[in-house]
């Protein structure tokens, strides 16, 4: 926890004010402040200072924890495969850290205190050194306390060593985030004490009357009784809402109007990063179709859409090609629709696009309770024919009840009795928008998957929690109570199935490796580092255990992680001894050759290209 006194002093001293128009780094500036959307290569040696700064957001002064004095921090841009040196100096009076989100770094450079390194002490400088075998759009953030909520995050662009298959005339980074003028620990404590503290979209007497008018008294009472019996609320969508947050694009609130410029006919690449602490966004540019070309940094086969839901920590690269010289609004709306941030995309720097009105808030349904099959509902128009294999078992095979071999008790308020695979759905509230909305099932990796072996081992992990008590966990065990990590063995191919027993969307992030999201059984599955697991969802990813080390695995909603929804994946060396004997494998990875981390798949691809044989797979659960 950082000191509030210190925090205030930084503000009172005036210090350097990173105002929306003034001192932001070039990439985050508005067009009127000189950002024309063309960036230079930033190099391969970076000096980063983490400290307290005053910031100005929407004309209001706030206090932030920053990297090099601004929110967001500087853009780190470098080239694939180049050796980097990043010196991080801690000017706070508490420990800090930087985690390189999505980067395949050696685990001891991953930046998670207590998992991959000891953290950076006050006054100390830690030097990260690594080279990464990948390119694309990523980001960095603190993995200490709630510093990320206070402004400690920034974007990363890695340029390819060779030619980029995605070409554009201009590019912008759009860092979406949620800013609170309140101290992050205060916000967390309020939610912990009263989970509805920021929800001003609850169902009222007025809703009851209008529902009776629409559905009749009997149906309305039945609906209220069902929710009341479960002690859950269908409007419980975001724990922290616009009542506490000012949503930002590149550090600019709607009032600050970040503007990106274009010339008609240009192909413009937007690198969109959700660097929020707690906000899943719906992203759209009304009037301008977007072609998604990359997800979580890796290229996908181009797919055109009008809107997508972006989980915390996910990134999407899109190409837009405006044909008319007009101002378009860039809209990031929070999933609960309590608020939004609007920026402008226009031919001239001093234009302001008309902001669309907030849309009506969505509500949760039976399906979100993990009762899809039980309620006898159809699966949202899913095309079952197109989804063979994996999607056929569990709830999809016609109402088989989900097993729950995990801990329950006070920390688990619900178990999904009949979860359904929701990869073919666009996300809460986007099911019925009058335009295209992206679904994970539409994503196909541009390159063939590097490892197409059938999984040799399966495990099931449940996302669990108690909303009322604000306790969050995996398999009913908070991180504070974890005694054993999740074990991966080097060289094995695993299928990990996530079952969401809760009624919230959880962006689940696995450090240190990309996983292949099982949208089908092809060799072009989308490869991701973070996946939005919808309420009552049951999805799988395949992952190759390659990078030995201890890796964090957690929900990227910062407060869920803080409340316990975190684990460690210990990826143990192939010929290593038991995990309880550290040192036995020391020589094996001390001098880890990062060249062998290549994702290009030259070696992997030759292993097996035939489609996986399901009959051999053990569909039982394992914990």
């Amino acid at each position: 926890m950082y000191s509030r006194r210190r925090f205030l002093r930084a503000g009172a001293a005036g210090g350097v004010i990173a105002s929306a128009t003034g001192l932001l780094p070039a990439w985050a500036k508005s067009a009127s402040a000189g950002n024309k959307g063309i960036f230079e290569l930033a190099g391969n040696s970076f000096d980063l200072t983490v400290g307290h700064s005053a910031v100005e957001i929407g004309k209001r002064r706030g206090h932030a924890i920053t990297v090099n004095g601004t929110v967001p921090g500087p853009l780190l841009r470098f080239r694939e495969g180049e050796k980097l040196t990043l010196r991080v100096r801690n000017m706070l009076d508490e420990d800090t850290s930087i985690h390189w989100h999505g980067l395949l770094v050696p685990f001891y450079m991953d930046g998670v205190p207590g998992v991959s390194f000891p953290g950076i002490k006050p006054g100390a400088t830690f030097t990260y050194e690594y080279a990464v075998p990948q390119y694309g759009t990523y980001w960095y953030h603190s993995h200490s306390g709630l510093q990320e909520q206070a402004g400690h995050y920034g974007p990363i662009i890695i340029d390819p060593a060779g030619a980029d298959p995605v070409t554009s005339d201009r590019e912008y980074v759009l860092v979406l985030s949620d800013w609170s003028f309140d101290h992050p620990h205060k916000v967390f404590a309020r939610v912990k004490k009263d989970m509805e503290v920021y929800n001003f979209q609850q169902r009222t007497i007025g809703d009851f009357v209008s529902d009776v008018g629409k559905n009749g008294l009997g149906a309305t009472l039945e609906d209220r009784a069902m929710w009341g019996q479960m002690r859950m609320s269908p409007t419980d969508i975001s724990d922290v809402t616009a009542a506490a947050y000012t949503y930002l694009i590149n550090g600019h609130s709607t009032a600050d109007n970040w503007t990106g410029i274009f010339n008609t006919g240009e192909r413009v690449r937007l690198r969109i990063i959700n660097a929020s602490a707690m906000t899943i966004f719906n992203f759209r540019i009304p009037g301008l179709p977007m072609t998604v070309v990359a997800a979580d940094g890796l290229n996908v086969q181009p797919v055109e859409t009008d809107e997508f839901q972006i989980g915390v920590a996910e990134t999407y690269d899109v190409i837009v090609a405006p044909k008319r010289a007009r101002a378009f609004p860039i809209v990031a709306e929070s999933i609960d629709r309590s608020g939004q941030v609007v920026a402008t995309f226009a031919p001239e720097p001093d234009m302001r696009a008309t902001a669309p009105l907030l849309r009506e808030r969505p509500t949760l349904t039976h399906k979100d309770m993990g009762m899809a099959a039980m309620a006898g509902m159809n699966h949202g128009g899913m095309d079952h024919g197109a989804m063979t294999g994996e999607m056929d078992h569990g709830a999809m095979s016609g109402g088989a009840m989900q097993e729950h071999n995990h801990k329950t008790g006070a920390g688990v308020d619900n178990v999904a009795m009949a979860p359904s695979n929701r990869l073919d759905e666009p996300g809460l509230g986007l099911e019925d928008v009058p335009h295209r909305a992206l679904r994970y099932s539409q994503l196909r990796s541009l390159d063939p998957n590097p490892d197409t072996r059938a999984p040799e081992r399966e495990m099931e992990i449940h996302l669990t929690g108690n909303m009322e008590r604000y306790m969050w966990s995996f398999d009913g065990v908070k991180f504070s109570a974890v005694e054993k990590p999740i074990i991966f063995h080097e060289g094995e191919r695993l299928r990990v199935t996530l079952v969401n027993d809760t009624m919230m969307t959880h962006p689940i992030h696995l450090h240190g490796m990309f996983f292949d999201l099982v949208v089908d059984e092809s060799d072009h599955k989308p490869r991701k580092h973070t996946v939005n697991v919808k309420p009552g969802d049951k999805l799988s990813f395949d992952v190759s255990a390659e990078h030995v080390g201890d890796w964090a695995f957690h929900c990227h909603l910062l407060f869920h992680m803080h409340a316990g929804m975190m684990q460690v994946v210990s990826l143990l060396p192939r010929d290593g001894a038991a995990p309880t004997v550290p040192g036995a494998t020391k020589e094996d990875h001390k001098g880890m050759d990062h060249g062998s981390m290549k994702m290009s798949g030259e070696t992997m691809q030759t292993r097996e290209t035939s489609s996986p044989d399901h009959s051999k797979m053990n569909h039982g659960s394992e914990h």
Partner: protein
Amino acid sequence: MAQATFFSIAGGACFILASAIAPAKAADPTPPWSQADEYYDPTEMAEARRAVQKEHGGNTMYYVLADRLEYQTDDGDPLLLFDGQGWWGGDMNKLTLKSELEYDFNAGRFHEAELQALWTRPIARYFDVQAGVRHDFTAGADRTFGVLGVQGLAPYWFEIDAALFVSGEGDVSARIEAEYELMLTQRLILQPRTELNFAVQSIEEVGVGSGLSTAEVGARLRYEIKRQFAPYVGVSWSRSIGETADLARADGDDPGGVSFVAGLRLWF
């Protein structure tokens, strides 16, 4: 005899409380993961490991709620009432304090002054069990009780607080409180509330008869300027029942009536 039993109950509760709140034992000597120990000082890693686990789900915090801080007209015999509780602790173990104070303006003294210190632990998804002691500071009826209760959220969103009290003299009584929150708008909330008190045996010196002794039903309409700060107005009907009412009448007291209330609900 009863006194001895009571003290052993109270002592037991205090011991449980102390051991529940004391920090957990030192970590197991076999760390759950340790691969980074090969690159960094193992002592520093061990410390960071303990810290990262504690920070993610093992934090303690506090909560203070003044559910009713109000002025009651009470048929021309006005009262100032405070009914609140607070806790300190983590998800599994909390120290809870509850207090109810009634100050009688005309008499210039506390009609009721009660403090409870309870150890709280979850027993179900939405319910906690609470055990500890209660002391009534009321002049002339200064008594101590052992307490065993449950508090939580019943189906259909009823907030329940129910407890059994055993006094130092071995008298047994019980109290159940239920509240409901009806959202008229996002900030205007109607809170119906009821409280029933029961006694197993009559205790004439404090004016309590056996059976249902007192009942209170009320409704408060509050406006949440912030969720944490809500002024309200309301009405409360309370009266003594049965034998307790007889005892009141015998003392020349009114067995009960309607009171208009105005107050503040606060939490932080």
